[in-house]
């Protein structure tokens, strides 16, 4: 929903913010309430990038809210600093720096560990504020006397005092905040953050340093929190110590989920609902302290039944009412567009141009899982431009072998040399950046994204390297991205399905996209783990054709059980059995090899194999 006309959302936000002071009073909103909503909304912008877009649920944002707030308030009340905006910015930087350090620890783990660690961190900050640092923070008294901003323009001075006057200042901050957030979300980094939320494993396998990007999201969230915390002090003319409490983090999480995660505006909507209900339930209905129970119940119901929150619900409703039924049907199988003509994608430049040996050479590769030996002492080498097949009965260790080659699992012993460079012990991300990647046996797609977005993620890894902070660049500003994506789309014959969500693809299409993801990183050496698995005979024929066209100018190693197709494709075949190389040779040699027949048919050769 964030991909509409340029600047549409920005314009609507600006209009909304300008109109608000004229409309909201009639709905019973006091200016102070509106200001608080905006502060929560700004706080939530960063949090939504972290939670909604990157999928990292932190219960510790209060740490950064409080840090930013108290640094700014301290500067303004105790340190004799008079520039309010400057203090806010310094508070924001302090919060971001804190976020960086905390992120280094919290992001060592993912999922629930991450959530637990952030809770613990926030609690530490709370206690530190109260005790060791109480000389600076005022302990439980907080810091009173935070001044309101004023700007000296030379000829006149603008004072933002309180109420609607202060609203102008806060609204401006929010507006700038939303513009920056939108830029970030639409940048290549934003695209990668969504990919991390969707499938972190594949995001790193196509060559993105996901830890770096997660840390980026964490720091962004901390920066927003820090600035919002500073604004809270300005708004109340007092920096309250309860900014640091777990309740603050919890309220932010709840507001974001109520409003709708992954929408940027969710926290604003959530805060509006929250503060409105708080006033309404407490005073109008006279519920007193029970208001929070009502909110809790509302929240639980929303999480249960309306995953996308209020905004998500409205979007769904809009879709229902105006029924956008322009789903493209799965393309009929019969329609075989002539084999994708486009020249093979440029395999990327060679690291050592002088190197002319085999592109891949593995020696003595062994993998043990406890007592189980998956691969033992495999020597294997593939020449530039070669098409190699690997076959072997189930459990022969083919997939483990591939995982070691792409450095998904480290070998127990042995060495892997790719393009003249020892890659043993590197990470899967780095290996992919060097030009070695694979397509998975079981689809590893970004299921929440469209086909085009999927390929974009993969192509970005090659075009931008494993980590780059181009937060304010648009996707269309990445040179060569569109061409590479379009080209890959054409290669895997998915051009007509480019804007279809992956979840709506047919199985065969998903398999092609799986190959496309690997292809879009422009590998020099492509490993394909059972590309034909589960396909109908017709799909197989098509896919073999596709593989042939990909193979031009590229080195590939293919595992598959479909020997007829495989033998037709490859030049040489290596047979694995019980974790060892049984034999290597041309397809003809393999077909007639007695040992191979025995491996597959279990020692009854001569009777059946004949």
């Amino acid at each position: 929903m964030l991909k509409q006309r340029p600047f549409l959302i920005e314009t609507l936000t600006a209009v909304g913010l300008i109109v608000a002071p004229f409309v909201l009073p009639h709905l019973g909103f006091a200016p102070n309430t509106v200001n608080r909503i905006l502060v929560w909304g700004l706080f939530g912008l960063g949090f939504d990038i972290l939670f909604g877009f990157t999928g990292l649920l932190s219960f510790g944002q209060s740490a950064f809210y409080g840090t930013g707030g108290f640094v700014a308030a301290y500067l303004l009340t105790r340190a004799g600093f008079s520039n309010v905006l400057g203090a806010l910015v310094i508070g924001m930087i302090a919060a971001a720096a804190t976020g960086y350090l905390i992120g280094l620890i919290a992001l060592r783990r993912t999922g629930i560990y991450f959530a637990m660690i952030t809770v613990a961190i926030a609690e530490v900050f709370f206690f530190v504020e109260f005790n060791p640092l109480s000389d600076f923070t005022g302990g439980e008294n907080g810091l009173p006397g935070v001044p309101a901003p004023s700007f000296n323009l030379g000829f006149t001075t603008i004072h933002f005092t309180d109420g609607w006057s202060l609203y102008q200042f806060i609204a401006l901050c929010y507006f700038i905040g939303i513009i920056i957030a939108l830029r970030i979300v639409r940048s290549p980094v934003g695209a990668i953050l969504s990919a991390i939320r969707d499938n972190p494993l594949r995001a790193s396998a196509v060559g993105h340093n996901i830890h770096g990007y997660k840390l980026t999201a964490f720091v962004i969230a901390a920066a927003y929190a820090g600035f919002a915390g500073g604004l809270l002090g300005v708004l109340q003319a007092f920096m309250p110590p309860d900014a640091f409490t777990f309740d603050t983090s919890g309220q932010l999480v709840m507001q974001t989920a109520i409003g709708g995660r992954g929408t940027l505006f969710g926290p604003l909507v959530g805060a509006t609902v929250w503060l409105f209900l708080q006033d309404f339930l407490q005073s109008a209905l006279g519920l007193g302290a029970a208001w929070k129970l009502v909110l809790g119940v509302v929240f639980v119901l929303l999480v249960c039944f309306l995953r996308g929150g209020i905004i998500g619900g409205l979007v769904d409703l809009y879709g229902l009412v105006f029924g956008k039924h322009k789903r493209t049907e799965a393309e009929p199988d019969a329609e075989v567009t002539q084999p994708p003509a486009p020249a093979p994608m440029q395999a990327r430049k060679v690291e050592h141009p002088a190197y002319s040996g085999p592109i891949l050479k593995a020696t003595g590769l062994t993998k043990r899982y406890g007592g189980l030996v998956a691969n033992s002492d495999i020597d294997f080498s593939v020449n530039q431009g070669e098409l190699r097949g690997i076959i072997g009965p189930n459990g022969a260790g083919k997939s483990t072998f591939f995982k070691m080659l792409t450095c998904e699992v480290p070998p127990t012993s042995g060495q892997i040399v790719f393009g003249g460079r020892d890659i043993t012990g590197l990470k899967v991300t780095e290996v992919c950046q060097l030009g070695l990647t694979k397509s998975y046996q079981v689809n590893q797609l970004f299921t929440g994204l469209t086909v085009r977005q999927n390929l974009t993620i993969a192509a970005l890894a090659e075009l931008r390297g494993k980590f780059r902070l181009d937060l304010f660049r648009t996707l269309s500003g990445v040179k060569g991205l569109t061409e590479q994506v379009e080209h890959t789309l054409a290669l895997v014959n998915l051009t007509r399905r480019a804007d279809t969500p992956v979840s709506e693809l047919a199985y065969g299409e998903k398999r092609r996209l799986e190959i496309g993801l690997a292809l879009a990183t422009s590998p020099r050496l492509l490993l394909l783990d059972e590309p034909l698995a589960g396909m109908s005979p017709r799909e197989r024929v098509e896919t073999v054709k596709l593989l042939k066209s990909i193979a031009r100018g590229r080195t590939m190693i293919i595992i598959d059980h479909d020997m007829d197709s495989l033998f037709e494709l490859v030049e040489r075949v290596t047979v694995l059995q019980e974790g060892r190389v049984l034999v290597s040779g041309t397809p003809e040699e393999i077909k007639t090899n007695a040992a191979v027949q025995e491996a597959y048919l279990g020692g009854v050769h001569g009777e059946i194999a004949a």
Partner: protein
Amino acid sequence: MISWPNLVSQLFNGLALGALLALISSGLTIIYGTLGVLNLAHGAMFMIGGYAGFVTYQYTESFILAVIAGSLFVMLLGVVMERVIIRHFYHRPHEDQLLVTFGLGICFVELVRLIFSSQSQLVPPPALFQGITNLGFMFYPTYRLAVVGIVAVALGALFIILYRTRLGMIVRAGIEDSVMVDSLGINVYRVFMIVFGIGAMAAGFAGIVNAPVVSLTPGIGDDILVQTFVVVVIGGVGSFPGAILGGLIAGEIISVTSMFNPGYAYVMLFAAMTLVLVVRPHGLLGVPGRE
């Protein structure tokens, strides 16, 4: 100020707190290990155990009955919660599970606040354990000593259930691989329900046992929840022995640090957690791959 008896008494305090944390954390960790759900309402379970026991005590004046009623009530609550809500979240992302249990925790706390007000309530220790005990070199509240014993018995019971019964075998197998357990023809959903009940009961039991030590407030579970998290991170998610080890470590850290300056208790706790995360990211007794 740091006298020898003072240190010993703090070590005892740490032992009592550590034992409690160990029990609560084992509940959290077996639920997470088996069901894959981190129950953020676990602190509220602890709190409700205390209040359920408190109500029972009001009517019966029997501490034993209070403990039994408190534990059973929380177990029942856990079973209902699993059946009605948690079950629908097994196939949803972790974030949703966190959100819904977080929300439920708030509902529980606010409901208790509504019924009992925010005022603190006190359950006196049973007559048998009232007063103080002379340990020869110092005096120490009898009930706190008893807490260590009571919790040790409870942990022993939990150990027997987990390691010496058929159900325990299934639960441990479920922690390793619940899909496999399911395909062996065991109704894994029923096991999940029972595990959730037992896990919640561990918290509830701790809640009522702790009630004579620290007076009851609706928010009492919040701090405990945070400490429990640290325990689980230190000990390793899904590991029962890890929860016990982590609990004792955390209890001692909090108590001993409090002797010098209570304000640093959490800082030290956090430092310990960070150290574990850096040195052994999967926890002291945890195994890789359970996230």
